[in-house]
């Protein structure tokens, strides 16, 4: 055989193989964006690719956003949060009446609501659902702690009796864990039911391949006439940022959830793709563990907080896509105090505070950062530079994210990072978690911070149903905690979604949920 023909053989064999394999199944896809049409076209399937896989669909015991945002397509609550993240609007209920002592809430249910299996929703289902949710000790039951009992006097009326006046009640009722399911799990066991849950939402369970994808299909019995527009929605799990972006460009997926900050600009300039930034309730914090002695000194904590150049962090780490934080509450939560000054970047004040502390010459401190977490490493370096002139020397300890998270929670750290996203349209959940070391169950956001005055104010706010005086209380809480500098408030950042421009009506609410019944493919 001559060398030339050998080379030919080689080229031929590789090409033939490539062609054969590529020809094997070149159907599907390709014809994604065909004819553009009017407002909302019916039909089509949407695929959303995410960095994490869903963990569980038991709404009462799951804490992972990547599960919650999906199951909200199946389960709906009596009230829901509006687009501003603050207003509550009637959903499966039409209205409610509150007794003058504030202890009894009577809800009128929306008539004509059916579960996806065709059975009508009644007050018995509502009672069963919320009674089950509030029983869950390792789940969300604690947010329903104010409820004493629930009764269902007639099929369209549900009555809640409370143990005490409870201002966040309506916000708590709107929580996904209080979503409505059929009484007695429709005759199944609890575990069986949540393997393929049934609800009143726009979509119903289709299939799940653990570690790969989850698919929901249209609920033909949905109470909002004409909705949903889509036939089905599939959520895939694609851990690689680059792969999700390429899949979006190839129209293999229509929504890329959370592209990294450094890809935003590129995606804004990608043809046929929209890069959307939705205001969120995500707030990022610098954690300061008070069991590390210097950090128990309020002047030290203030000094560190003054030394955080939040604008620089937003500019260089978030590529301008964020906002410096002035409070531990995000702007999208009720009673957020815009005019609470918080602690902002001021090196002179940082020096003055440190001089007043027990450590005027500074000290050494270790910062825990996630080994793959680019933003944390960058912020750490910015802070290391800023604190050096003050004599505060930061050293880094890198851990993989699970170890990092466990160490923060177990308070095995000195400086570290953490963030929060809201679950309800009320500050109470976050305030209790962040400052009420006993009731919050997390030693004040894993810092060990204790200020009985602030705790007393928050307890007062829980039971005060007057909007103005409640606002006043939360303003005081925000001012006082900022001066205590128990956390370094870093920044507020948006939810980042890139999607094909034929996706219509896609909107992410500040709590992170989205109403896919409003989405269509043009």
């Amino acid at each position, binding site marked *: *055989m001559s*060398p030339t023909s*050998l*080379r030919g*053989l*080689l080229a031929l*064999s*590789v090409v033939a*193989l*490539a062609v054969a*394999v*590529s020809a*094997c*199944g*070149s159907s599907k*896809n*390709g014809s994604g964006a065909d004819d553009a049409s009017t407002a909302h076209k019916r039909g089509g399937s949407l695929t959303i690719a995410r960095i994490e*896989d869903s*963990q*569980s669909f038991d709404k009462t015991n799951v*804490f*992972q956003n990547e599960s919650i945002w999906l199951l909200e397509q199946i389960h709906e609550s009596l009230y829901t949060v509006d687009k501003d993240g603050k207003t509550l609007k009637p959903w499966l209920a039409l209205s409610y009446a509150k007794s003058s002592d504030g202890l009894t809430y009577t809800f009128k249910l929306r008539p004509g609501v059916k579960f996806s299996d065709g059975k009508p929703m009644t007050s018995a289902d509502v009672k069963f659902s919320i009674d089950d949710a509030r029983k869950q*000790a*390792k789940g969300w039951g604690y947010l329903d702690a104010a409820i004493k009992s629930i009764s269902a006097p007639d099929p369209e009326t549900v009555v809640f009796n409370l143990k005490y006046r409870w201002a966040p009640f309506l916000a708590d009722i709107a929580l996904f864990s209080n979503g409505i399911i059929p009484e007695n799990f429709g005759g199944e066991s609890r575990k069986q039911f949540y393997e393929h849950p049934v609800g009143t939402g726009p979509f119903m369970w289709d299939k799940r*391949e*653990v*570690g*790969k994808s989850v698919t929901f299909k249209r609920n033909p019995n949905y109470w909002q006439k004409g909705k949903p527009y889509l036939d089905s929605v599939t959520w*895939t799990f*694609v*851990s*690689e940022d*680059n*792969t999700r972006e*390429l*899949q979006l*460009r*190839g129209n*293999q997926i229509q929504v890329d959830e959370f592209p990294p900050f450094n890809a935003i600009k590129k995606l804004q300039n990608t043809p046929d793709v929209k890069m959307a930034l939705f205001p969120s309730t995500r707030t990022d914090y610098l954690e300061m563990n008070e069991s590390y002695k210097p950090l128990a000194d309020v002047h030290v904590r203030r000094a560190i907080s003054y030394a955080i150049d939040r604008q620089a962090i937003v500019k260089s780490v978030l590529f301008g896509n964020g906002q410096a934080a002035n409070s531990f509450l995000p702007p999208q939560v009720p009673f957020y105090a815009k005019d609470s000054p918080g602690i902002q970047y001021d090196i002179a004040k940082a020096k003055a505070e440190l001089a007043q502390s027990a450590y005027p010459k500074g000290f050494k401190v270790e910062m825990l950062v996630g080994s793959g977490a680019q933003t944390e490493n960058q912020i750490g370096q910015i802070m290391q530079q800023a604190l050096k002139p003050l004599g505060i020397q930061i050293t880094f300890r890198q*851990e*993989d*994210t*699970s*170890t990092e*998270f*466990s*160490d923060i*929670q177990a308070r095995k750290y000195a400086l570290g990072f*953490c963030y*929060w996203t809201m679950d309800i349209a009320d500050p109470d959940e976050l305030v209790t*978690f962040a400052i009420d070391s006993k009731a919050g*169950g*997390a030693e004040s956001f894993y810092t060990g911070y204790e200020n009985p005055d602030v705790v007393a104010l928050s307890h007062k706010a829980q039971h005060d149903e007057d909007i103005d005086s409640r606002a006043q209380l939360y303003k005081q809480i925000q001012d006082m905690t900022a001066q205590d500098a128990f956390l370094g408030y870093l920044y507020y950042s948006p939810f980042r979604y890139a999607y094909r421009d034929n996706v219509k009506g896609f909107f992410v609410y500040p709590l992170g949920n989205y109403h896919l019944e409003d989405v269509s493919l043009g």
Partner: protein
Amino acid sequence: MSLPAYVARRILALVPIALGVSILVFLLIHLIPGDPARTILGNKATPEKIALLHHEWGLDRSLPVQYAKFMERLVHGDLGTSLFYNVGAGGLVIDKLPVTLFLITFGGLLALVIAIPLAALAAVRRDRASDHVIRAVPLVGLGFPPFWVGIVLLLVFALHLGRLFPVGGYGEGFPEHARSLFLPALTVALSIAPILIRSLRAALLEVLESDYITTARAKGLTERRVLLRHGLRNAIISTVAVLGVNIAFLVGNTVIVEQVFDLPGLGQLMINSIFQRDFTVVQAVTLAFAVLVVLVYLLTDVVHALLDPRVRF
């Protein structure tokens, strides 16, 4: 010893290997910090909720007791329940195994398809320009991480050149699987081909200088027949051994390749389970990998024996 007896003995040897691997993995995963309960509860974790989950999973028992429970289940063929997903860990492994097996086989075959003609060409044109190119270029390629190669292949063949292949994913049905797996398999193949080319070229050169090749040529056989019938057939024996020895490397590469190409295989399951501290799944996947590697070594030996009748056990 006969071949079947040898195979039987090797399969029996799997038991202590699997046992050893299971103890090692069990200890390692429990030694590293991180807590699956905290992963699941997120920042809503309270000591009470963590304790409830630990109790449910038996993580509040001592390590030896936990290991004994693990072995007890294993003997009954039960790999335990995934802490993260709350489904059977064995079922998860069985779901993901075909993807990884397909990828490794496809990648191995592609590596041979690339390596054999190139090595033959290099051997025939020894010390000429094409020989040097064939030896040098893939070696440089060896320096590129499969992660990067995968992204480039996706960009070129799945986006810019008219979407010949899907951008990752596994598709539905065998033809789609094959189409989806071509680029990942090529990435795997490119990572191992340089080693195969070099070993096969060396083996070919040695064979082509041996007496029986001279005899074959003297008998007037065509050069093609000499090369394919007598040369390659004998030289390839060593390449099969090299491929077999490198299978662990290949399995390691699939972990990365599965991430880049969004393939729901064992590698991806392994990585995610480690991040989630899903102890039972990590144990199950590691066991599967250990068994897989041992079986591939065995297969290599058997193929070697079939190709080379001189091999005795």
